């Protein structure tokens, strides 16, 4: 039986269209676990077959009918598990890069694939997913159920659908108007973007900034001090804004950063498939960015007002309306201001520790974990922050030809200073 995409799935499909339009592979993301030993691929291959039997929702392909999109069961046999061999860390990095950059049409994209990259001593276990099938939380759950074949997810209605079903037409219309007005207000401040080379986008690359447990604790203490218990994401976003401004990205009036908001209840072990997220924006003017205290106060106030006035949910009916537009038109509205400028300064995600925690894969201990995501050009940069056993990892995902290594190094150095509230800037 075919399954319709929900409004949030459709949003990620629009992003897929925009990423492909930029010349990249599409809206693919990955969750990567670095393991302390190499693995025998045999047992994982068997586990992947079992996974498809347990979760036929993952054995589908996208189909279009008019302006609507569906998941159609895939009846031809196909493997979703792949083994790769790397001689050293650099070649493992290139393999991971190629997994993210493999070009295949939207309608042939395999929604979920597992990859084992064996090194002489150690390995990487990678889950790549096509974003319209699930969100980052769903990906964590996929890994959990892949590794625990004796567990069955509890039955749960999609919180996203549950929420949208309870609104009548007029309520949706009112919320849509509110969201549109909100975005109109955001667009009054033009967004500064990273320094991008004017070259065609070729492929996604990534660089990791791994922070040890002790330093991570210090950063979380600063986050607590500046934005309290209610806004760890805001701390990272604010520091990223300040680091960008300090290395010279301040050609426009401020920064505007989209980030996702999960609608599942915390600790919920289902639903696995279907995106259950809405999105929010954090915005600050250049004047606020210059003053650390002022910036975090403003981001905190903005966040609170967004929730108080129901703007977090108001963006959902706007997404619903967008889902009836051709992808190209929908994409242009979401990405661009009426003046035709890119609204997003960079993409951001903070997922914290995996939940449920993944301590081992086929008896190999997990050393670190990070995430990857394709991005559009511009802004050509996405920063995905996660934590594993207390260690923060920042994954910088960028378009290789457009963002230079030297620039990224400088940005990462300045960001580290901002996260630690070290007042001495890099030169």
């Amino acid at each position: 039986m075919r399954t319709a995409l929900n409004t949030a799935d459709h949003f990620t499909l629009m992003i897929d269209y925009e990423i492909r339009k930029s010349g990249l592979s599409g809206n693919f993301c990955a969750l990567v676990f670095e393991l302390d030993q190499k693995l025998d691929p045999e047992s994982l291959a068997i586990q992947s077959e079992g996974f498809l039997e347990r979760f036929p929702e993952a054995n589908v392909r996208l189909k279009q009918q008019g302006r609507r999109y569906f998941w159609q069961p895939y009846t031809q046999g196909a493997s979703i598990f792949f083994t790769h061999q790397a001689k050293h860390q650099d070649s493992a990095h290139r393999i991971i890069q190629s997994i993210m950059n493999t070009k295949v049409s939207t309608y042939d994209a395999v929604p979920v694939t597992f990859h084992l990259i064996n090194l002489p001593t150690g390995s990487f276990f990678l889950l790549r997913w096509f974003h319209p099938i699930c969100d980052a939380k769903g990906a964590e759950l996929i890994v959990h159920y892949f590794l625990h074949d004796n567990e069955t997810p509890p039955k749960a209605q999609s919180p996203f659908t549950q929420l949208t079903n309870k609104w009548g037409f007029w309520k949706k219309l009112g919320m849509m108007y509110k969201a549109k007005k909100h975005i109109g207000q955001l667009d009054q401040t033009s967004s500064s973007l990273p320094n991008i080379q004017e070259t065609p986008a070729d492929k996604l690359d990534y660089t990791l900034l791994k922070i040890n447990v002790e330093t991570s604790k210090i950063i979380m203490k600063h986050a607590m001090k500046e934005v309290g218990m209610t806004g760890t994401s805001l701390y990272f976003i604010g520091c990223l804004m300040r680091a960008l401004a300090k290395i010279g990205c301040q050609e426009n009036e401020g920064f505007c950063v989209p980030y996702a908001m999960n609608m599942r209840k915390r600790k919920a072990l289902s639903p696995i498939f279907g995106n259950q997220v809405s999105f929010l924006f954090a915005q600050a003017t250049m004047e606020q960015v210059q003053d650390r205290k002022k910036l975090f106060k403003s981001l905190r106030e903005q966040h609170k007002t967004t929730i108080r006035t129901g703007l977090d949910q108001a963006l959902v009916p706007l997404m619903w309306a967008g889902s009836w537009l051709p992808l190209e038109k929908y994409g242009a509205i979401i990405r661009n201001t009426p003046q035709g400028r890119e609204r997003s300064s960079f993409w951001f995600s903070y997922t914290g520790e995996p939940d449920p925690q993944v301590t081992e894969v086929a008896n190999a201990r997990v050393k670190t974990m990070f995430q990857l995501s394709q991005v559009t050009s511009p802004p050509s940069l996405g920063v995905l922050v996660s934590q594993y056993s207390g260690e923060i990892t920042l994954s910088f995902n960028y378009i290789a030809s457009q963002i230079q290594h030297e620039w990224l190094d400088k940005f990462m150095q300045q960001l580290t200073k901002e996260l630690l509230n070290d007042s001495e800037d890099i030169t």
Partner: protein
Amino acid sequence: MHEILKKFIFEELVQVDDVTLFAEQDDLLDAGLDSMGIMRLVLFIEEELGVSLPDEEIEPDNIQTLESIVKWIERHR
């Protein structure tokens, strides 16, 4: 008040296997009350109970358990 808070927390914010087994002193943060959830809870208290809780007091000691939330609310009534 306990019941109103409990209903909101477990219907909207946190997933637990059996709500009836969740005691007043059990740790809500361990159970999964996250930053967005805390913000929603504070605004819910403001709107439904008419008690305004200062931002600077949003800290683990006040949020950790149902018991501590109730005490926190009582201090500002």
